[in-house]
């Protein structure tokens, strides 16, 4: 038993050691990508229309299209790292991906953990629900069960606008939040306006309607802190593809609306 416990602790410690820096990084992430001709991009394929799986089970969506074009211009083979919404930042921090391109809205909180590149798209978060549920102002949320998905912009914004007495219900992925709304386990749900449209169109019998606009935000690729070289290359790529219309074409193709004027910072 004693050796068993020591063995367990030793295993746990070596697991921790794996996470710790092993050697001083001689190459920065951009150099590594260029040398290995391979880039690992974390994507969330359960977040239409940004990331989905097509009928053949292949990743598709605006984030995926952006990642494919970016890898092509980088001259690197693209390796997708599929993550749930809660894994978009951890996958980066754990070194499983070099960059996350998963419509991750710019917030100052997230910027404490990772570095943002320039925005490559915009989205709005809305609250929607069945016609029978009366919500016309944030105050009406009191007493209602509102479903949101963890690690999303709605998690960062809805609890702040919701009045006392709102029952926020957290799910791990968008699919579960949608299921909860469709099965009546929540009275309303918050997600991007694009996801709302997909869900409403797919379920005409549920008579879902838009209730409230929560916020609008820009989203962009994220890289690890200190990966300045990679960030600078991606910013350059965004600048070029903003001007040549590629980003606007991708956005229009998947969302059906025109790409707003993208700011830089």
């Amino acid at each position, binding site marked *: 038993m004693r050796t068993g416990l020591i063995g367990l602790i030793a295993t746990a410690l070596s697991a921790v050691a794996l*996470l*710790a*820096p092993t050697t001083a*990084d001689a190459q920065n992430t951009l150099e590594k990508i260029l040398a290995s001709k391979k880039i690992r991009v974390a994507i969330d394929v359960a977040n239409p229309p940004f990331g989905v799986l097509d009928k053949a089970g292949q990743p598709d969506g605006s984030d995926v299209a952006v990642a494919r074009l970016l890898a092509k211009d980088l001259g690197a083979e693209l390796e997708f790292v599929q993550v749930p919404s*809660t894994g978009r*930042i*951890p996958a980066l*921090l*754990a*070194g499983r991906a070099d960059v996350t391109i998963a419509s991750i809205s710019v917030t100052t*909180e*997230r910027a*404490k*953990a*990772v570095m943002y590149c320039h925005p490559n798209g915009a989205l709005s978060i809305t609250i929607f629900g069945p016609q029978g549920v009366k919500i016309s102002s944030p105050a009406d949320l009191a007493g209602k069960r509102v*479903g949101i998905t*963890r*690690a999303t912009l709605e*998690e*960062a914004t809805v609890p702040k606008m919701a009045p006392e007495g709102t029952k926020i*219900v*957290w*799910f*791990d992925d968008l699919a*579960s939040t949608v*299921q*909860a709304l469709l*099965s*009546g*386990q929540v009275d309303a749900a918050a997600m991007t306006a694009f996801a709302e449209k997909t869900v409403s169109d797919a379920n005409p019998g549920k008579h879902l309607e838009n209730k409230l606009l929560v916020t609008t935000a820009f989203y962009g690729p994220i890289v*690890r802190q200190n990966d300045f070289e990679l960030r600078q290359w991606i910013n350059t790529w965004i600048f070029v593809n903003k001007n040549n219309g590629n980003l606007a074409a991708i956005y229009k193709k998947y969302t059906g609306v025109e790409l707003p004027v993208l700011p830089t910072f």
Partner: protein
Amino acid sequence: MHYAFHFNVVWEHWRELVEGAWLTIRLSAMAMGIGLLAATACAYAKTTGPAAVRWAIAAYIEAIRNTPFLVQVFIIYFSLPATGLSLDANQAALVAMVVNFAAYGAEILRSGLESIGRGQIDAARALGLTRYQVFRHVMLFPAIKVAYPALASQFILLMLGSSVVSAISAVELTAVANSLQSTTFRPFEFYFASMALYLGMALGFRALFTGVYWVTFVRPRLTRPAV
């Protein structure tokens, strides 16, 4: 690649973690209590009931033991409302855990029941005990004794498996850790913290079960006057 650990963020949120762990403990303990009663009823009906009942229980046990727990949880939470039965996340989690534990428990108890010598049962019947009395007084206690270690292990598995009920928004330990990591961006700290809490709970329950075993099965023998 470098990741600096900041465990002080865990201490700032210890209250939430403990609340999550407490829900995990409550759900697991209630599921075990109710599930054990249901498992005993199933084991009893499966050993003594009419053929139709035996078949129905066998079908239930096989259906639960050969499908993922997460799918069972989803069916109870997302599909039952269509039949008019709407359970909130914690209720749905508890029901799913009871249904799951009862199926495994029934099968474990059955193995205990089968270990009891045919001669003992025949002797009890010959003394005029009813089928129920034989089950209650001759079979159940030794069966639980034989099955006890397996039941205890199954309970630990149930408690650890309860981490998936965060998927239906029950705010147990894993859900709390997920929320905290997604708002503080310190995933490793909170996953290690929840791992430590699960380990502590599992070891605590093992110690408790060992104590209960000793009090129930070992001590009565020691204190019984020698014949």
